[in-house]
């Protein structure tokens, strides 16, 4: 895999301002501010319990910040209807959580929520894009972990998101599948201009894949910059 470019890309698409979250008097995140440019692959790194996944869940409003907000294309996301926001800011989690049925029905799930149908050609194109040609009619129960994660990626892409959030997308996979998914995500960013924010506990992975990195410690952002600046060469 080629090393990512170590500069910021296009315009700001997502901007977090003073984000904080407290649950039952416990501070999970405090005063986190950063931005994501178009075609960025921004890594969120930090030790276990530093608030990485909690921060990601605030970006598509799966959880509510107790302070601060997020701007999507300059608009405060509290003014965007939640379903539209989540269509525009997609998410892929550590486990694929595929819905029972075949691969095609999973890919059609997101658009179907808005009454849209995804034609067969689009399903075929999405599956080719994630390296699963001919998988359309396969039952999800027979897929390997790596294949499931690819379907999960294609399912999120079917919604045509502006930003894709990735929560430890390779941590539940074996080494071979992990390399495949890493290459796939990198190619989606490089070749298709997809904007991604990826949580990872694996600093090497962040160094390999991300052009920018933010480092969290105990719920606070302590450093931001290129992967080399934050994580070292």
């Amino acid at each position, binding site marked *: 895999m080629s090393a990512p470019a170590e500069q910021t890309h296009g315009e700001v698409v997502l901007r977090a301002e003073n984000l904080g979250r407290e*649950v039952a008097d416990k501070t*999970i995140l405090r005063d986190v501010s950063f931005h994501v440019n178009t075609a960025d692959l921004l890594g969120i790194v930090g030790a276990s319990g530093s608030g990485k996944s909690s921060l990601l869940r605030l970006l*598509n*409003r*799966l*959880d*509510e910040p107790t302070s601060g907000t997020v701007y999507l294309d300059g608009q405060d996301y*509290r003014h965007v209807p*939640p*379903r*539209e926001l*989540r*269509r525009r800011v*997609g*998410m892929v*989690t550590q*486990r694929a*959580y595929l*819905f029972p049925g075949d691969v095609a029905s999973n890919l059609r*799930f*997101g658009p179907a*929520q*808005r009454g849209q149908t995804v034609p067969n050609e689009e399903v075929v194109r999405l599956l080719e894009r994630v390296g699963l040609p001919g998988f359309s009619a396969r039952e999800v129960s027979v897929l390997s972990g790596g294949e499931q994660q690819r379907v999960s990626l294609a*399912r*999120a892409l079917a*919604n045509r998101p502006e930003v894709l959030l990735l929560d430890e997308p390779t941590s539940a996979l074996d080494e071979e599948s992990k390399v495949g998914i890493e290459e796939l995500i990198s190619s989606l960013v490089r070749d298709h201009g997809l904007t991604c924010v990826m949580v990872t506990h694996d600093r090497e992975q962040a160094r390999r894949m991300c052009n920018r990195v933010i480092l969290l410690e105990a719920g606070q952002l302590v450093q931001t910059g290129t992967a080399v600046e934050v994580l070292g060469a």
Partner: protein
Amino acid sequence: MFPSQIALGLAQAGIAAILALAVVLLARRRNIHLEGDAAIALLRGIVQIVVVGSVLALLLKAPRWTSIFLLTGMVLAAGSISAKRAKNIPGAAKISTYSIAAGAGMVTAIMAWAGVIDTAITSLIPVGSMIIANAMNTNGLALNRFRSEVLAHTGEIETALALGAAPQATVRRYAESSIHSSLIPAIDNLRSLGIVWIPGLMTGMLLSRADPLYAAIYQFVVIAMILASSGLTSLLSTTMIQSQAFSPAEQLILKGAE
């Protein structure tokens, strides 16, 4: 032999208690010590049921319209009790009360209007209490199952939300399975009626020398009413509870500790 029916009842209670104590003594010979608990339970049981019987004796002489207040009181208590099965779901008590009131109330009202249930307080209260109690149990089972299903499928639900699904669509199948499983006891009761068990109402009618065939058919009527009211209660409560699992910003709020 006995000066009154109450004296006869007390004598019968005494014989039943002696039998229970005999079993306790038998257990004691095998080093299973139930004496203390059993004695207290028997004493409590007789006092409680005699108090309830005395209150009922007074109430049953009350005018017909008082049954509305009694049934309302039962519904309020049932709503509060079964809501405890829906821990951490906001508004569960209100939803349970509304659902039991609608489910049990509607079925009781229709059957009373159709002349199937006598509106005399002596008939309406026992039949109404049976319907309300069963609606309460079904409601508790449905809410408890819904809560467990949601807690067990947080990942699937949030994945669907993250793909832009409407909150209620993400939990619909868990609500459906909750309705189904909550009605299993009522359906099994109907299925096993007369084969596995002869319910209390029929037993009571037989003891008061009603025609056995009529007692049997009337028992079926009551069990079918229980199924109808329980089904309606379960449908209503699971429909209403679905939205309570989410915040106004469509975030899943019914989940384990963060």
